[in-house]
C-alpha cells in the first residue's frame, strides 16, 4: 500500500462525487486491484471519483490496448522498400490515423474503427456514430474525407433479432454517411450464427491531404489557448469506452445511456469548419477528436504527445444539460466535438471560422509548463494527474494462450470423410450457395448508401474493390479499397485464416487493377482473459503480421475490439483487413464482370482442390469444419504481379477473385452484370483432389478468373506458363443466357443465368421482406 504523501484535492463542488473510493467502486470502474495500486503509486494519494473515472476510461482496453499492445508490435509499420510508392508519412499509433504517400505531394489518411457494442444495443445510433467517429479521426489529420466502407457481421438472417440489427445498422450508416456527403463504397458483410446478438460494425474512412497539411494532435507552446469546438456536452455516451471493454450480457441493454446519439448535420458543419480553419497557415498547433473518453482522452493525449501540461476549466465547456458535474463532463462521449490548440494571439481567426458555421468555439484552457493535466470546476481543482500516466503507463498484459481443441481437430480433418457430390446435384448446390446471404448480392445494402456523391465513384460497390477518382484533389489518380476476413477460416486455423484474409484482400485490389499500399486492421475478438480466446487473437496477429512483412504492405493504424461475447458464446476470431490501393491510369480500372460474348475466360492459379472451411460445407451439410486452404505467399505474389502487368498492358477485360463459394459462384458472378450472357465451361479432369465438389466449390487460395479477347488468349496462356503460373482456358462467353459446365466430358450443369441471378439478387431482399 503506497503512503499518502501528497495532500488530497479539495472537495468536489458536487457533493455526490465526494464518496469514499471503495474496492467495490474500483471494480465497478473496471480496474483490477493491482491496477488501482498503480494509480495510488502514480498519484501518491487516493484519487477522487472524477480521477478514478478518468483512469477507468483511459486504462480501458478500448483506449489503452492493454491486452494487445505487445502483440501489435509484431506489425510492420513502415515499408521496407524505401523506393516503393506508398511510403508511410504518419505511422500507426502516432496520431488519430496513419497517413501514406500517394505521390505528387499528396497523402491518404485512413483508418478503420469498430462500434460493435453500441450497435448490439442500439443498432441505428451505434452504427451512425461509428461512422461519425471514424470520419472525425480522418479530418482531424487535415484530410478531406473521400470514401467510406464498412465491414459488417451479423448472425443468421433468419431470426427477427438479426433482421432488426441488420436493418438498423444499415440505415444508421446510410443516414450518417449520406448526410455528410462522403461516398460509401459498400464493404464486406458476412452472416454467421457466431455473431448472433453480437454484430460487428467496423467503419472505415479515407481522406486526402497535402503532405504539408498533416495536422498533429499535440498540445505544445506554453500559453497557447485550448479550444472546445462543436455542439454542447450532454450526458450521452457516459463511459462508452469502458462499456466497450466488457462482455455483452442480458443487462447490457441497461447500458443504453453509454450509446451516443449522432447528428450528421453537426458533423458536416464541424468537418467544413475544421478544414477551413486548418487551411489558415500556422493557426492550428494541435487538434484532436473527442471520441472515446471524450474530453478526458483529448486533453491528456494532446498534452502527452506535446510533452506539456494542460489545464482546463469545465465552467467554460459548452453544455446542453444543466447540473452536470465534473465526472459527467469529463466522461461524456457526446458526438461531433473537437479539441483545438491554436497559436496565442490568433484566437479571433479560429472564432471567426466557427461563427460562420454557427458552431461553439469556447476557450476552455491553455497549455501549461510541466506534465500535469489539471481540471477545474466551479473554482476548485477536481482532477490533477500526470498526463502521461494516463496514456503511457496503462498496464500491459501478456495473457496465457491455449490452443482450443477444435483447431487441432481441424488440422487432422480429411475431405475423404465427405460423401461424394453426385453430378446431378451440382445445380442445386450452386443455387444454395448463391442464396446464402454472405454470397448473395449486397445491393439491398449499398443502394441505401450514396456511393456517387463527390463525383468520384469509378467502380461502384459489388465488384472486387470499390474505386474512387481523386478529382476533388485535382489529381488524376484513383483509390481502390477492399475489406476482407472470412471468419470460418480464422475459427478453424487462426494463423492461416488471418493470412488468407490478407491475401484475399490484396488479390481483390489486384483484380481491380490496384497496387496495394497499406493496411488498416480491425481486430474483433472475444474475451482475452480466456486463454483459448487469447490464443486465437495471438495467432491471427502473427499471421497477419507475417503477411504484411512478406508483401511489404505495412499496417498504418487500426482498432482492437475485444470482449465480443454474448449469452450464446463468443464470436469467431475476426481480424478484418482493409487495404488501400492506388490505380494510376484510367485504363487500368478493371471490373469483375464480363462485358460481352465471345470472350475467353481463363482460370489462373490452377484447379481448386480444397473443401475445408468452405461455404459448400456450410450450405450442404451445415458444417464449419475442416483443414483450411493452404496459402503460398510466393505463388500469390506471382499471381498478383502477373495480373497487374497484364492489366497495365490492357489485356484483361475482367478479373474476379475466387472466394466464398468457389469456382462456380465466381463464374456466375462474372455474368450477373448482364444475365443475357452465357458461358460454356469445360474442365478436362477433376484435378488433383479427384473430387467434383472440391473443383467446383472448393475455396483454394491464389485463384483468379480473367476474361480476354480471343486474340489474346494464347499469348496469355503462354506468358503465364513462362513465369510458372498455372493457367487454364475454362470456356467462352456466349449469348445463350445459359451456363453450361462439363467435367471430364460429362455435363454437370446447364442452368439459365437469369435463374441463378434471380436467386442471388433476391435472397437478401426476400429475407428482409418476410
Amino acid at each position, binding site marked *: 500500500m503506497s503512503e499518502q504523501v501528497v495532500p488530497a484535492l479539495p472537495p468536489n463542488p458536487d457533493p455526490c462525487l465526494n464518496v469514499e473510493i471503495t474496492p467495490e467502486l474500483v471494480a465497478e470502474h473496471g480496474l483490477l486491484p493491482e491496477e488501482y495500486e498503480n494509480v495510488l503509486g502514480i498519484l501518491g494519494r487516493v484519487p477522487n471519483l472524477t480521477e478514478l473515472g478518468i483512469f477507468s476510461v483511459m486504462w480501458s482496453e478500448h483506449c489503452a490496448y492493454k491486452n494487445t499492445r505487445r502483440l501489435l508490435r509484431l506489425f510492420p509499420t513502415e515499408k521496407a522498400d524505401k523506393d516503393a510508392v506508398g511510403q508511410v508519412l504518419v505511422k500507426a499509433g502516432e496520431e488519430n490515423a496513419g497517413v501514406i504517400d500517394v505521390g505528387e505531394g499528396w497523402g491518404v489518411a485512413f483508418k478503420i474503427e469498430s462500434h460493435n457494442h453500441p450497435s448490439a444495443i442500439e443498432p441505428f445510433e451505434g452504427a451512425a456514430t461509428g461512422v461519425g467517429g471514424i470520419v472525425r479521426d480522418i479530418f482531424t489529420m487535415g484530410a478531406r474525407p473521400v470514401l467510406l466502407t464498412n465491414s459488417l457481421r451479423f448472425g443468421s438472417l433468419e431470426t427477427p433479432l438479426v433482421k432488426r440489427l441488420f436493418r438498423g445498422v444499415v440505415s444508421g450508416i446510410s443516414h450518417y454517411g449520406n448526410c455528410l456527403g462522403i461516398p460509401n463504397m459498400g464493404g464486406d458483410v458476412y452472416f454467421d450464427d457466431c455473431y448472433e446478438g453480437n454484430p460487428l460494425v467496423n467503419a472505415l474512412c479515407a481522406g486526402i491531404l497535402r503532405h504539408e497539411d498533416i495536422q498533429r494532435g499535440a498540445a505544445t507552446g506554453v500559453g497557447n489557448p485550448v479550444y472546445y469546438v462543436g455542439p454542447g456536452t450532454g450526458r450521452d455516451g457516459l463511459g462508452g469506452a469502458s462499456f466497450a471493454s466488457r462482455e455483452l450480457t442480458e443487462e447490457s441493454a441497461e447500458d443504453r445511456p453509454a450509446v451516443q446519439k449522432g447528428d450528421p448535420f453537426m458533423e458536416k*458543419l464541424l468537418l467544413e469548419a475544421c478544414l477551413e480553419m486548418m487551411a489558415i497557415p500556422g493557426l492550428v498547433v494541435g487538434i484532436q477528436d473527442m471520441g472515446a473518453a471524450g474530453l478526458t482522452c483529448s486533453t491528456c493525449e494532446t498534452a502527452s504527445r506535446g510533452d506539456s501540461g494542460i489545464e482546463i476549466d469545465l465552467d467554460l465547456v459548452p453544455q446542453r444539460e444543466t447540473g452536470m458535474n465534473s465526472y459527467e463532463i469529463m466522461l461524456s462521449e457526446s458526438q461531433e466535438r473537437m479539441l483545438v490548440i491554436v497559436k496565442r494571439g490568433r484566437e479571433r481567426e479560429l472564432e471567426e471560422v466557427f461563427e460562420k458555421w454557427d458552431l461553439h468555439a469556447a476557450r476552455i484552457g491553455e497549455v501549461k509548463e510541466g506534465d500535469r493535466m489539471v481540471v477545474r470546476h466551479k473554482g476548485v481543482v477536481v482532477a490533477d494527474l500526470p498526463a502521461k500516466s494516463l496514456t503511457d503507463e496503462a498496464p500491459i498484459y501478456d495473457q496465457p494462450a491455449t490452443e482450443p481443441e477444435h483447431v487441432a481437430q481441424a488440422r487432422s480433418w480429411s475431405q475423404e470423410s465427405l460423401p461424394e457430390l453426385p453430378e446431378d446435384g451440382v445445380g442445386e448446390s450452386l443455387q444454395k450457395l448463391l442464396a446464402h446471404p454472405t454470397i448473395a448480392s449486397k445491393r439491398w445494402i449499398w443502394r*441505401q448508401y*450514396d456511393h456517387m*456523391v463527390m*463525383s468520384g465513384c469509378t467502380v461502384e460497390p459489388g465488384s472486387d474493390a470499390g474505386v474512387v477518382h481523386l*478529382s476533388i484533389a485535382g489529381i488524376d489518380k484513383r483509390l481502390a479499397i477492399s475489406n476482407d476476413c472470412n471468419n470460418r477460416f480464422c475459427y478453424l486455423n487462426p494463423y492461416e485464416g488471418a493470412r488468407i484474409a490478407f491475401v484475399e484482400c490484396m488479390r481483390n485490389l489486384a483484380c481491380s487493377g490496384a497496387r496495394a499500399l497499406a493496411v488498416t486492421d480491425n481486430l474483433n475478438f472475444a474475451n482475452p482473459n480466456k486463454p483459448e480466446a487469447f490464443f486465437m487473437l495471438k495467432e491471427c496477429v502473427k499471421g497477419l503480421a507475417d503477411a504484411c512483412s512478406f508483401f511489404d504492405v505495412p499496417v498504418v493504424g487500426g482498432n482492437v475490439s475485444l470482449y465480443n461475447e454474448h449469452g450464446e458464446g463468443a464470436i469467431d476470431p475476426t481480424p478484418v483487413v482493409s487495404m488501400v490501393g492506388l490505380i494510376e491510369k*484510367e485504363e487500368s480500372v478493371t471490373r469483375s464482370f464480363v462485358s460481352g460474348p465471345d470472350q475467353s475466360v481463363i482460370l489462373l492459379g490452377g484447379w481448386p482442390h480444397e473443401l475445408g472451411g468452405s461455404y459448400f460445407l456450410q450450405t450442404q451439410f451445415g458444417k464449419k469444419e475442416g483443414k483450411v486452404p493452404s496459402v503460398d505467399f510466393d505463388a500469390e505474389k506471382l499471381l498478383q504481379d502477373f495480373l497487374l502487368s497484364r492489366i497495365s498492358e490492357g489485356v484483361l477485360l475482367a478479373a474476379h477473385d475466387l472466394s466464398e463459394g468457389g469456382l462456380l459462384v465466381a463464374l456466375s458472378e462474372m455474368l450477373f452484370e448482364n444475365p443475357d450472357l452465357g458461358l460454356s465451361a469445360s474442365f478436362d479432369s477433376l484435378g488433383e483432389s479427384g473430387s467434383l465438389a472440391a473443383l467446383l466449390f472448393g475455396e483454394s487460395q491464389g485463384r483468379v478468373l480473367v476474361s480476354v479477347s480471343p486474340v489474346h488468349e494464347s499469348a496469355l496462356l503462354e506468358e503465364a506458363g513462362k513465369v510458372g503460373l498455372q493457367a487454364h482456358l475454362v470456356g467462352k462467353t456466349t449469348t445463350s443466357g445459359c451456363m453450361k459446365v462439363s467435367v471430364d466430358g460429362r455435363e454437370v450443369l446447364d442452368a439459365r443465368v437469369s435463374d441463378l441471378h434471380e436467386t442471388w439478387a433476391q435472397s437478401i431482399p426476400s429475407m428482409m421482406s418476410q
Partner: protein
Amino acid sequence: MKVAILQFPGSNCDWDAEHAVADVLGVPASRIWHKSPLPAETEAVIVPGGFSFGDYLRCGAIARFSPIMKDLREFAGKGGPVLGICNGFQILCEAGLLPGALVRNDCLEFRCLTQPLLVEDSNERFNRERLGSSIALPIAHGEGNYRADETVLADLEANDQILFRYQGNPNGSANDVAGIRNSRGNVYGMMPHPERAVEPYHPNRDGLPVLEAFLEPLVSKDPVEVASS
C-alpha cells in the same frame, strides 16, 4: 463568375456542381455562401444537392429562410435561370419557386442508383431531340417522391412543364415525375444528378447535355471535346 452555386450549411453536392460546370463545361462558376448576397454578375444559379440544415423539419424547409433566398427570388423573378438539383429541387419547392412537394420515398429507404429517365419535350431547351428520348442519371435521395394536387399535376402536364419521368419509378412520384420547370420556363428542379454523369469514369455522360441545355447561352461551342481531353 457566371454561375452561382449556392452553399447552405449541409449542402454536399456544391463541389460536384462546381466541378461539372467549371472544370468540365468550362463555364466560370463559384460557390456562394447562403449568408452572402448573390453577386451582381450572376447569370445562372444552381441550388445543389445535400442535406441543407440537416433536412430537419422537412427537406429544404429551413433553407428557404436563408438570407440569400431573397436575392434568389428577385433573380428568378427577373427571369434568371435557376436549376435545383435533389435537395435544391426540394428547396425551390419549399420556397414556392416551383409547385408541389417532395416527400419520403414510398419504399421508405434512401435510394442510390443510375436511373433510366424518359425525356419529355418540355421546351426548346429540354427536348428529346436535343437530349435523346431516354437518358440515365444517378439518383441519391430518401425524399424524392413528388407530390402535387390534381390541378397542379394537370397544369404541369398541359403546359409541358415536366422535364423527365422515371422509367421504373424508384420513389412513388406522382405521374413518374423526376423533374419539372415553372410555367415561365426559367426555374428548373430535378431529383436526378446531372453533375454526377459528366466524366469519362462516371456511369455515363448523360448529364452533360442536361447541364448544357440549362446553361445554353453560357456554354461555348464544343465544350465536351475540351472536357474529355
